């Protein structure tokens, strides 16, 4: 894949420590999303724009994409643009706040597109607090015409950050497994797309089974499991260069890989003679360390955000449960004690919670608990769903669902879903094919 197809640098301007009157409390289920108006952007001196650039209609597309992002977050209600009476120019330079208050907007976003003296495209945006009547955020970015989607995501993140006090998650990508074909001969390909489903690309051809891709939180790298040459092993793939390699030299199946939070290690399971244990490998030195040694299944390991602990799945008690141990493998303690089975623990990037799959009385739940096992909260129940993955700000979980299939497999499908940590805002993520095993990247612009 191409390097960051974006050459931009940003200048924060007008950063007076302005105090906003409107703010979103993200920790609660937001039943009343914040009313926001996203104005069309203003094209300064259209004669300087090439015909191709004009045809892209960025003055409409950028605000539209920002609106879609904010809408999907569930935290914003975007007021119908038909009710905006101010021209994009006035809105951006000196808005009349009464006009926006009249349509009940509490915040307003305006923007400007400029071709500068060096013929570069500059995108400016401003975020206005309609109630206080002042600008609370502004940003200017240089863009290439093809980078407008990323620009829009970066602006969306700025708005989200300013309004919630937390990092956004719009300038991110999702890696997943695209599925086609019959249930008994499923063809699986690694695929990657922007968080909003755009720019979908396939990274493997589907000649061999691939499973459970995960992002390196610090680099353009993924780890996944492949049945290449019928040898199920964990692989490392550089998504910029396309280089891939087997992780470690294990005489049997390796699976369930995940990166450490600093991106320097891969932790995974190695199965031998009917027993699965957890191992880590340092990517630079290739030093492999065995972390568990128990005649039970130990799998689905995930590091804590500070790297000091590991949560994992084990059936050493006789059934599938969640455990936490130190990152050297010592002091393993069971933390799940509710009814049913628990699997796929994954530590929040914020460090406070562990998300998991729970299987109970024929239903599958996605839930969260604190790392000592207390405060269990189930977010969603379904016929089949599993494998949650956190957004980089720890506020949203993505996972996959499967539906029941009839006699000849009819009706069986798999799809990606997201839900807020609050348990609200459950959404299906559109994909071109059936899809499973989603994992979220870190923020690309960090």
């Amino acid at each position: 894949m191409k390097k960051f197809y974006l050459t931009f640098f940003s200048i924060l301007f007008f950063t007076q420590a302005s105090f906003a009157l409107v703010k979103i409390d993200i920790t609660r289920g937001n039943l009343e999303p914040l009313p926001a108006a996203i104005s069309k952007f203003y094209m300064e001196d259209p004669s300087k724009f090439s015909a191709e650039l004009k045809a892209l209609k960025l003055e409409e597309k950028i605000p539209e994409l920002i609106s879609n992002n904010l809408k999907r977050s569930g935290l914003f209600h975007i007021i119908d643009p038909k009710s905006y009476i101010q021209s994009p120019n006035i809105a951006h330079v000196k808005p009349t706040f009464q006009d926006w208050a009249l349509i009940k907007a509490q915040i307003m976003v305006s923007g400007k597109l400029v071709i500068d003296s060096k013929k570069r495209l500059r995108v400016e945006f401003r975020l206005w607090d309609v109630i206080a009547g002042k600008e609370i955020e502004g940003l200017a970015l240089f863009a290439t015409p093809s980078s407008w989607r990323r620009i829009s995501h970066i602006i969306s993140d700025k708005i989200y950050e300013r309004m919630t006090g937390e990092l956004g998650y719009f300038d991110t990508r999702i890696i997943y497994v695209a599925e086609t074909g019959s249930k008994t001969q499923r063809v699986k390909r690694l695929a990657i797309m922007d968080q909003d489903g755009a720019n979908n690309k396939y990274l493997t051809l589907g000649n061999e089974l691939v499973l459970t891709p995960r992002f390196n939180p610090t680099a353009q790298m993924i780890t996944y499991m492949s049945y290449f040459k019928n040898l199920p092993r964990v692989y490392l793939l550089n998504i910029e260069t396309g280089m891939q390699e087997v992780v470690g030299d294990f005489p049997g199946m390796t699976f369930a890989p995940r990166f450490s939070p600093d991106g320097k290690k891969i932790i995974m399971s190695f199965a031998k003679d009917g027993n699965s244990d957890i191992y880590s490998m340092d990517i630079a030195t290739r030093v492999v360390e065995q972390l568990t040694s128990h005649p039970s299944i130990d799998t689905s390991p995930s590091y804590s955000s500070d790297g000091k602990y590991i949560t994992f799945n084990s059936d050493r008690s006789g059934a599938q449960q969640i455990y936490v141990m130190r990152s050297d493998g010592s002091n393993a303690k069971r933390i799940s004690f509710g009814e049913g089975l628990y699997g796929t623990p994954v530590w929040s990037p914020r460090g406070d919670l562990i998300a998991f799959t729970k299987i109970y009385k024929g239903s599958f739940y996605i839930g969260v608990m604190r790392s000592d096992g207390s405060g269990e909260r189930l977010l969603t129940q379904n016929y089949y769903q599993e494998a949650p993955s956190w957004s980089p700000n720890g506020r949203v979980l993505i996972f996959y669902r499967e539906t029941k299939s009839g006699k000849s497999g009819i009706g069986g499908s798999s799809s990606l879903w997201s839900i807020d940590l609050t348990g609200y805002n459950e959404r299906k993520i559109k994909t071109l094919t059936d899809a499973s095993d989603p994992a979220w990247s870190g923020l690309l612009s960090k």
Partner: protein
Amino acid sequence: MLIKSLKNTFLVIALGILISACSTTATKKSAGGSDVYTGTDTVKYLATGVADRVFFGTNSKNLTSAAKATLDKQAAYIKSSKISVVIEGHADERGTREYNLALGERRANAVSDYLMSKGIAKSSIKVISYGKERPASKESSALAWSQNRRSVTVKSK
């Protein structure tokens, strides 16, 4: 109003009948207190009379006496025909993907251990787990899941 509530009652009764019908079939299948498949619908044969697969209970790697009888025949056949085999371990679709990979490996090794105890050399057996990735039956039903919790012995090329 009356018609409406009658309708509801009828629906409830109809549902009740359906549910009890379902549970009857389920009990039949799990006769003997276990949910191991005992039929031959999906079975293929390595040679005449030598079934290629054995079935497991939910989350279990235990070999039933029927499974052992099948594996005895497999062992005899492998010895006499001097072939090498791959044991594929599989799980049903009602578990998490990663745990199922480990479970499939556990099942394949239970079979491999048994075959070795019957005199098959370790060098002529390979194991591979497919977890829930390669079901034999496509349906989402208790019967299909029991057919999918299996190990399959394949001649290696």
